[in-house]
């Protein structure tokens, strides 16, 4: 076979890094041309905006006049003087704590019930999955009616079993729990994923466990749980990221009220940016959120070594 010798067909120096043979260079060029749309989009709508917003975080900026450098003022203001900032941070943390673990558990329990080869799995799966199709605004509009303190379905059903329901979205104490309750309604997506994860656990593992004399609990504890941890882990990370950015639920359901009881972080950020035109301050808030989410994600990833099981490890 006569492949082209580098000496015979020497490419210009600026192309040499693309590959040794012309074909490889051709292929590499095609690659760059093909991913060009994404590269442009990445630079224009992600990389540049990130740099820009990082810069804006240290400025005072109202969109009309040029940004004014203020150093760490925005962050100082955020951490030491802005009660609303801490309020929204607290609300969001409480929301994350209320919606993510319980939602994951709910989805897991349903998936595990369905995984034990019940009749009509598809039927149940459809029912649980249906709410995730509904737009967040429609969900919130619907729940404002369901959670009406006097005539809402929730309180009327509670009244039937002799419980006097709270004021829900009208009450500063119960508005955030309302929001969390609403989030549990949309766990269908997670449930479907867990169900697929459970179905994907090789039957041979259970059989092997049975041979070793494992009971139901032992099989659950030593086969099901470890095999499912990667899926749980992945969804937990995505769930955390999503829950920290909750926006339309609190906006439509309660508009952040009553008394800022449901003013979530991103809702507060939106208000700072587009209502009060504090673009610099809002950028600072965005970067703090980014830092918190990153730190949490890293924490979960670090901790994953302790509880997430990867098949590749076991083979060693």
């Amino acid at each position, binding site marked *: 076979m006569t492949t082209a010798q580098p000496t015979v067909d020497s490419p210009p120096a600026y192309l040499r890094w693309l590959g040794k043979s012309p074909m490889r260079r051709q292929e590499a060029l095609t690659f760059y041309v093909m991913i060009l749309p994404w590269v442009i989009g990445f630079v224009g709508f992600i990389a540049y905006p990130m740099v820009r917003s990082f810069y804006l975080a240290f400025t005072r900026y109202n969109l009309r006049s040029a940004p004014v450098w203020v150093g760490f003022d925005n962050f100082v203001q955020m951490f030491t003087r802005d009660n609303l900032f801490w309020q929204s941070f607290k609300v969001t943390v409480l929301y994350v704590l209320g919606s993510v673990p319980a939602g994951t558990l709910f989805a897991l329990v349903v998936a595990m019930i369905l995984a034990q080869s019940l009749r009509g799995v598809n039927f149940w799966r459809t029912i649980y999955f249906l709410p995730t199709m509904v737009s967040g605004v429609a969900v919130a509009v619907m729940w404002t*009616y369901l959670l009406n303190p006097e005539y809402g379905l929730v309180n009327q059903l509670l009244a039937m079993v002799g419980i006097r329901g709270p004021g829900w979205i009208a009450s500063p104490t119960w508005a955030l729990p309302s929001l969390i309750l609403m989030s549990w309604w949309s766990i269908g997506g997670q449930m479907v994923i867990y169900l697929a994860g459970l179905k994907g656990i090789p039957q041979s593992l259970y059989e092997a466990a049975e041979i070793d004399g494992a009971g139901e609990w032992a099989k659950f504890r030593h086969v099901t749980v470890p095999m499912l941890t990667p899926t749980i882990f992945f969804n937990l990370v995505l769930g955390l990221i999503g829950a920290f950015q909750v926006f339309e639920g609190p906006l439509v359901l309660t508009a952040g009220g009553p008394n800022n009881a449901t003013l979530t972080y991103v809702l507060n950020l939106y208000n700072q940016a587009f209502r009060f035109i504090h673009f610099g301050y809002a950028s600072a808030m965005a970067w703090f959120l980014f830092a918190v989410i990153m730190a949490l994600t890293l924490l979960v990833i670090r901790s994953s070594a302790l509880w997430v099981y990867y098949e590749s490890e076991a083979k060693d």
Partner: protein
Amino acid sequence: MAVDSTSPAQRSKLEAYQLRPSRFGQTGFRRIRLAVSYVLLILGACFMLFPLLWMLSASFKPEWQIFTRPPIWIPQEWIQVQAGNENTGINTYTVERNGEETTVIRLGRRRYTSVVGISDLEQHMITVPQDQLTAATTREVGEANVPLNVRTWNSPEGAREVVAIGRAGDDLAVIELDKLTTARVMPLTVLRTADRVNVELQDVRLQAREVEIDGETRQVLELGPESELVVVSTPEVAEHATIALKDQIEPAGSVAIGATELDIVTIAGDESGTQYVNVSDESWQPVLELDIITEHALTVPNAQLTPLDEPFTRPNLTLPRYTWQPEEGDPQDVVGLLTVSGETIILPDEYAEGIRLGPLAKLTEDQTSMRVRGGGIIRIKEGFEEYGEIIDVALFSQPQEMALLVPLDDIPDAFEADGDALKRNTRPHLRIQNYRRALTASIGGANFLTFFRNSGIVVVLNLIGNFLSCTVVAYAFARLRAPGKNILFAILLSTLMLPFPVTLIPVYEIFRNLGMIDSLWPLFLRSFFGNAFFIFLLRQFFMSIPVELEEAARIDGASTLQILTRIVLPLSTPALATMAIFTFLGSWNDFFTPYVFINSPSKFTATLGLNLFKGHFTTNYEVLMAASTVVIAPTIILFFFLQRYFIEGIQLTGLKG
């Protein structure tokens, strides 16, 4: 893990293992577990489905069923009786009388409350800390069946039944139930018009009223609860019902039916002097067939009109008449329909014959408006129901306050009934008008059809954008080799984790500089530059396609793009369907992006429109629920058709861990 490859001999050995005593009783355990599973599943399913069903049912309800206790699940409509020859009906109820269920209509009502004489309280009042009292429950007490709010007082000496009469600081002043022998009911109208007196009993301030009971003036204290007695009669009474202008009726004493006094009226100028009972007050408004208005009504300046002495009269209705002098041509006698700021909408006499009154209750909903010739605006109501016929009418002049009357002579069988014992007479009925209202109601110059069109445009452009960009980029990442590819792919994946607020403000600036704020551009432009998630999804799928096919095509001289479009894409339908579904869901349900970039209602997407509706129809839940149903309908319908792809797509996205 070699169980699958066990020989038959080994297997029988294994089966022998399984017959160990430890497995005894497992079928029982299984059964319990199965039962518990189903109970939990059904409970969860109720939590998932009830909200949706409740929304769907509410979207078909009339307004009065939105706030009912207990909730009504199946939308209902009133069963009415025709009110005489008038174009209206009267609601019917069912009440038990002498052990039989009777259909009745309401003629009047009186509200009552329970009271007790102050002099009876003095020796027996006790102040009790509030935490020793239970919540009040209403009960009829004593021989007179007086309803009272009874609480249980867990006193140190045991539980006692008491009624609260007032507040003493943080404590409640109460009277024991058996000391309340003189409690009685009294009409609210009597009590509320009586003189107030302030009384102080053992330092507890009470507000009493001075009323006359059995000829002597006594001070009484209102205890509640309020109750209602209604006077009802058989529906036949409605046969001779009639309406009259409110200011044309004159009081003519009252008649007592049981404990309730019904006011009697006569109609001014009515020579027969018939006495009537006023069943209800309502508003009626002049109407006329819409096509007569569109063809013959005109808007003219008031200066061209000379009032005529003789007005246009119909029963209960008077409209002004004018002589109209057009700029060119002969003068004409006309009826004035509506005068607004110097201009009058007129209708020539010969077309005015059909003008009549219509009940506003049937006219108010779904009103729209239109311009008549000459520019004047008139309100119209399409689908007005009149004596069983559905017609389109125009409304004009002012609403008139009317009274619905039934002749006194017709009601000898009227009787009194407890307000709570009256049951509404209804039948299942889906009210599709709610949907019509949701779709046609115009807010800020736009309605839901506009919102849908905008959402549709955004969805289609996003589909095109993602299809064009993501397939190409994903294929490059899946198959082509180039230096730096892995780093680029890692960057691509990491952008999935980026919280959107971080880029929000600069992206807003970019679109602002491009002059795209308040347009649909920001909602779809970015999809033409690829979406990290879909690129990842498609790359995974492309990599699972056997590479041999592509290599064969390459040897035949096909270009990369040809390979992608002719070989790879046709094999990738499942992944493309998943991408299409998620693109659709994402852009249809997206709220944040349009909320940030769009201000004018004419550019709103469906979700933004729904939010706008929520601000507008705050408690008109029947309209809000209809609008929500309409917004979620496309996604739900699509889901039922493409369920497999939805579920597979979700699994693809979540199982990569």
